[in-house]
């Protein structure tokens, strides 16, 4: 099976909850849209049972152009990090237990 996409998420709302196709697509778009708006408004998001989207501010640090070796500073920036919750971590680890070591 390929990766889960918004289209499949909308299909599930249609199949399982009986939303019509337009409503289903709208809810999926709003879900990711509101997450994005929150994060770009400097607001973290906590989805209990899944995980937290956190914001970190990174100071400027020295960097290097990997092609030319030239030194160029990496400017200060704000980045999103995801911290999976205990429940999600436990479910994913259970998967690992069923796999042969890769």
């Amino acid at each position, binding site marked *: 099976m390929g990766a889960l996409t918004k289209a499949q998420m909308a299909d599930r709302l249609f199949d399982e909850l009986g939303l019509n196709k337009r409503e289903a697509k709208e809810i999926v778009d709003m879900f990711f849209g509101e997450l994005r708006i929150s994060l770009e408004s400097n607001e973290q998001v*906590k*989805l209990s049972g899944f995980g937290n989207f956190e914001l970190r501010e990174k100071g400027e640090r020295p960097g290097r152009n990997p092609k030319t070796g030239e030194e160029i500073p990496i400017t200060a920036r704000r980045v999103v990090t995801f911290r999976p919750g205990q429940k999600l971590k436990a479910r994913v680890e259970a998967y690992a237990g069923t796999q042969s070591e890769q």
Partner: protein
Amino acid sequence: MLCQGWGEDGGSNNDNNDIGGTMTKSELIELIAAKQNQLSAKDVELAIKTLIEQMSETLAAGNRIEIRGFGSFSLHYRAPRIGRNPKTGESVGLAGKYVPHFKPGKELRDRVNQSMHSAEVNPYEEPN
């Protein structure tokens, strides 16, 4: 078990964590319910919980999630290692495992980063 998991993300220590606030799942549900007019708040709640459950199931089955403009979720493998009980100093073998990982998409990365630079007053800005 309880002492596992700390410090694995290795976030660097001198980052600022000046955050503006937090949105919870129930606030997100209320916000979406208020912004659309076809579904009841109960239906929106059920829909959002279904989406989150589907995302968890996908990762728990070892599959990826790819949301254009937002980012992708995948599993990263952590090799087996020797851990230590911080209380007793005793060594314990920890099996290899998979952990969920999120990589923000370019659009989300750019927008979040821009929001820092366009903030009216940024107390962390270097004086010129």
